[in-house]
């Protein structure tokens, strides 16, 4: 009897996990992830906090926040101390999640379509997509830079909206803050924390 219960619990966990995980194929991965997000964000039974919690969860699981943080730090990631990098990563994750939830919780319904995928290398695939707003607005082209070093677990590293890379914009914003503060990573962390706590 005990064995059967353990077996059933394992089966339930595996089944539930398979429901939560997205496909490993980059194109399907983006499509499933975005459609899941659209369904949840359009759900009128969920309040803002529940939607924010959902966005945070899928971002933590499917976005390479660690690499994104290092990329946005630029060349300083090679010379900064381990402690400073570690503190920066913690602050960056909070900053990323806050700005992401703030951008997405006011979502208005749109139709999402995958256009094509372009395998750049063993590590990167660009998935091209478009969003067609239901309010007659112009369609928006979005390219997803998917990191595929682990083919079983693709991760999003950047979103290129109408040719504008969010990662590059963030990197250049941080570079400007650093250059006006003698390249002091602690000052950058201070600024990020200030933003997160406001």
């Amino acid at each position: 009897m005990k064995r059967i219960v353990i077996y059933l619990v394992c089966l339930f966990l595996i089944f539930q996990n398979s429901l939560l995980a997205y496909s490993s194929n980059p194109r399907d991965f983006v499509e499933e992830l975005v459609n899941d997000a659209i369904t949840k964000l359009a759900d009128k039974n969920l309040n803002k906090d529940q939607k924010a919690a959902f966005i945070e969860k899928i971002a933590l699981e499917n976005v390479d926040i660690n690499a994104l943080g290092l990329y946005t730090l630029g060349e300083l990631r090679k010379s900064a101390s381990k402690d400073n990098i570690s503190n920066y990563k913690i602050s960056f994750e909070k900053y990323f999640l806050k700005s992401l939830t703030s951008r997405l919780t006011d979502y208005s319904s749109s139709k999402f379509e995958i256009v094509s995928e372009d395998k750049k290398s063993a590590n990167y695939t660009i998935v091209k997509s478009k969003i067609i707003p239901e309010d007659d607005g112009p369609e928006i082209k979005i390219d997803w830079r998917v990191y595929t070093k682990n083919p079983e677990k693709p991760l999003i590293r950047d979103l290129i909206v109408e040719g504008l890379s969010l990662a590059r914009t963030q990197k250049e914003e941080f570079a400007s803050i650093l250059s006006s503060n003698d390249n002091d990573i602690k000052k950058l962390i201070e600024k990020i924390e200030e933003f997160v706590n406001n």
Partner: protein
Amino acid sequence: MQFIKNFKTIFIVLVLLLLLTPVAKSAEECFEKTSRAIFKFNMALDDVVLEPLAKGYNKLPSPIKTGTSNFTSNISTLLSIPNNILQGNLKQLGHSVGSFAVNSTVGILGFLNPAEKMGLKPHKEDVGQTLGSYGIGTGCYFVLPVLGPTTARDSLGLLADTFVDPFAHVTLREKELFSTSGNSLDYFSIKATSAVDFRADNETNFESLEKNSIDLYSSFKSIYLQDRENKIRNSIEDQDDWGNLDN
């Protein structure tokens, strides 16, 4: 006469800026402190004038907004025509000429856009882009009062635009072209309407950027420079600068 005199002075200053920064990286600033002050002024102006206008514009019925947007867009196609010639881009020249001809006639003075349904999709081209396509670097970056972010190359292009744009020829210089004439008020009215239309289209994006930027000035700068690079390349291909950032 005064306009030509002023133009000569500005032209010389801009050429010098461009020449003095031939190897400047796109991120380099001409005079950052002044640019930041002007940016602050522009944002205040946006809060008081442009944003309320854009919000009001967004409340207009959709056909009016689309018609206005089509109308200003059709006029701006005129600037693309000489620039397509200067870039030797015959395919785009066909799109621009065809689109303008169809929309100005069948499209009732450009308020409708039947050209798009016929597959005519002209890219917006200006002299700054033409200079970029010749391999001329951006020069340094700065912010102009009211007009916003620019670079030495693009501001030189902006001035040159008024000389190659047939619409500016008819309105700003009040010359006659195909029995059509206008005045500077027409020119500035169209430019102002285009600005309101653009601001209204991007209302949510502006709000999101203001809300989520730690340094808004740098975010605008990055977006402006990326957008200009894309327009010069006529594509939105992703630039891979991730290097070997492997976990």
